[in-house]
């Protein structure tokens, strides 16, 4: 179990590259275009007519979807999002509204609580107030709610979702977002690409993400990926080294967690970091043993003799079988409290006395 935990931990360092980036036109009439582009087609356009047909469809998607494509600014950063309901529900990435899930040495995870104020910036630059709702940290999905009424009779322009499971490799898709962060006088920036074959990006697709070759960069996070019918199929999450590796949260994952996200639930992250800290980093999965991956060399655990590779098995009189249990135990403690930890090191069991430190010290 130990070796696998380490590699999972390494894989867990997939920080979202932060891409921290309705009016409905007349769909039926693509004027002057003889050939119509089949929106599910995965092959390349083969002649000028097909190029024109694809171009017309892409322009129609950009026109329809730009009014609902937004930028989000919140305390520590900026990203993008998309309005998906007429009362102003916005999909975005968890790391845009919650920051990176940091496995820091000082306490084990930056906390996140919903109902925090943030600002939504519309296509024309207008700013409206919004608040954060729930997140799923594992899938990097997040929701925001606009607090003002929309421009169309109190309603917001919004884009419906399509089933991401129906996407095929090679299917043409359009990305909108705010690369580099929102910029004055710049509407959402469009990129055209195709869905990548999941096998070519197993590192990401194994975790449930989808990959396209629409290039993304910091500021795009949380922004929408659209199919050629002009429906949302993904939300931008992270990138890899290659230009073809642009990773999105599939809409199907949002749908699974929908009610929880709307209700402001925080899936996969501590709501509030504890004030007392022991100064270690655990492996990623909260349900696994309290296996210590790193020890803060200036922290309380180091002073008490804890080493990387140790597994904490008891916290005072409580048996500890998971990181979650350890965190529950430390929540009620104060800096300066002394706790007795039983620690398994190889075949030995050690008893260590730890004086808890202060978070952020």
């Amino acid at each position: 179990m130990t070796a696998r935990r380490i590699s999972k931990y390494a894989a867990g360092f997939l920080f979202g590259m932060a891409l921290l980036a309705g009016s409905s036109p007349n769909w039926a009439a693509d004027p002057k275009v003889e050939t119509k582009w089949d929106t599910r087609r995965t092959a390349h356009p083969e002649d000028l007519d097909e190029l024109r047909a694809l171009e017309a469809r892409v322009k129609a998607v950009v026109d329809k979807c730009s009014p609902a494509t937004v930028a989000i600014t919140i305390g520590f950063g900026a990203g993008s999002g998309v309005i998906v309901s007429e009362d102003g529900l916005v999909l975005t990435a968890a790391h845009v509204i919650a920051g990176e899930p940091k496995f820091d040495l000082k306490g084990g995870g930056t906390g996140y609580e919903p109902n925090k104020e943030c600002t939504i910036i519309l296509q024309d630059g207008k700013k409206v107030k919004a608040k954060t709702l729930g997140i799923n940290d594992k899938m990097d999905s997040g929701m925001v709610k606009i607090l003002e009424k929309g421009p169309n009779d109190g309603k917001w322009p919004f884009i419906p979702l399509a089933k991401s499971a129906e996407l095929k490799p090679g299917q043409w898709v359009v990305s909108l977002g705010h690369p580099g962060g929102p910029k004055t006088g710049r509407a959402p920036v469009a990129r055209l690409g195709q869905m990548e074959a999941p096998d070519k990006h197993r590192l990401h697709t194994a975790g449930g993400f989808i990959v396209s070759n629409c290039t993304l960069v910091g500021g795009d996070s949380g922004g929408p990926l659209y199919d050629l019918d002009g429906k949302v199929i993904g939300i931008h999450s992270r990138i890899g080294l290659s230009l073809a590796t642009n990773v999105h949260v599939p809409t199907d994952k949002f749908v699974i967690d929908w009610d929880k996200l709307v209700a402001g639930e925080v899936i996969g992250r501590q709501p509030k970091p504890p004030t007392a800290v022991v100064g270690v980093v655990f492996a990623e999965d909260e349900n696994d043993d309290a296996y210590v991956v790193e020890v803060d060399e200036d922290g309380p655990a180091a002073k008490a003799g804890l080493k990387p590779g140790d597994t904490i098995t008891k916290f005072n009189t409580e048996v500890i079988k998971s990181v979650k249990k350890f965190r529950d135990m430390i929540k009620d403690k104060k800096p300066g409290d002394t706790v007795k930890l039983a620690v398994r090191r190889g075949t030995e069991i050690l008893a260590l006395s730890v004086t808890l430190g202060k978070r952020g010290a």
Partner: protein
Amino acid sequence: MNARSLAAALVLAALASPASAQISTNPKLRAPFKAVVAKANESTVRIRGDDKDIALGTIVFPDGFILTKASELRGALSVRLSDGTEYEAKTLATHVPTDLAMIKIDVKDLVPVSFADTKKVPIGNWLASAGDKSDAIAVGIVSHGTRPLTFPDDIILNANRGFLGIMPVDEKDKDGKVIGAKISELESKGGASKAGLKKNDIIVELNGKTIPGQETLRALLENLRPGDTVKLKVLREGESKEFKATLTGQLQQSRGDIQNAMGGELSGRRTGFPAVLQTDMVISPWDCGGPVVDLEGKVLGVNIARAGRVETWILPSENIRPLLAELKSGKSTAAPKK
């Protein structure tokens, strides 16, 4: 780039997936564009410096006048035409704000381009880069219509220039006249620090040239490269001292810089243009300077910079046309004074 807009990036180095064909350079997609770029290709040339491909050029007058990206020109220049013949070239004039240069070869009866307006070009239109082969060198879409650049993208600088590793500010005498560039911050790993310069030193000369202020210092460094050594004359507590420093590349990279570097090389001079038409087309820095066309074959401008992971910037026709006469006549324009 706004530092606060970028959260942690991620270089998945060892775990990188195999490079799939990104649409821009995919040969299957480029095939139907052959006819689209055919005419513009006749007006596109390869520019070489010391026998290395450094840029593409756009023929703008029949008697051998070629437009290209000024900041890429170095070494003995030559131009290779689409028929394979090669000629010596000389630079007639450069325009720093647009980073355009007019070069001249001794050949007549070439086919010039004619530039079409970009004002009404919609987001989503196909674009193709003409090149020195029969194919389009890259294809993509209009990511954003022609727009002026805003801070900090409006700053003229070359990221590939040599750096001293200092933060200079203007030093004024008691009458308010600027007399040198004072070091307000020093990077410990930078060339200045390694040479023995200290905080509050005032640089007054670089390689014998007077430095009246930090703007002149930056302008001189624009033309120097990492590894170059410079002679500095410095005032320290009233005393004049001399130092020799070796320039380095940029030491502090923002997260945005790191992310933008993921996926390919960027142009050194990639900011500070008066206006740009933005595309997601992927081109190499040494392929800048050639014409970009729409599906009708109309030339909308020239590729002026590979500006980031998601963007190539095109200098639009509207910003090129007014400069053609003065560049042809040999009139250069330096960076504007702030």
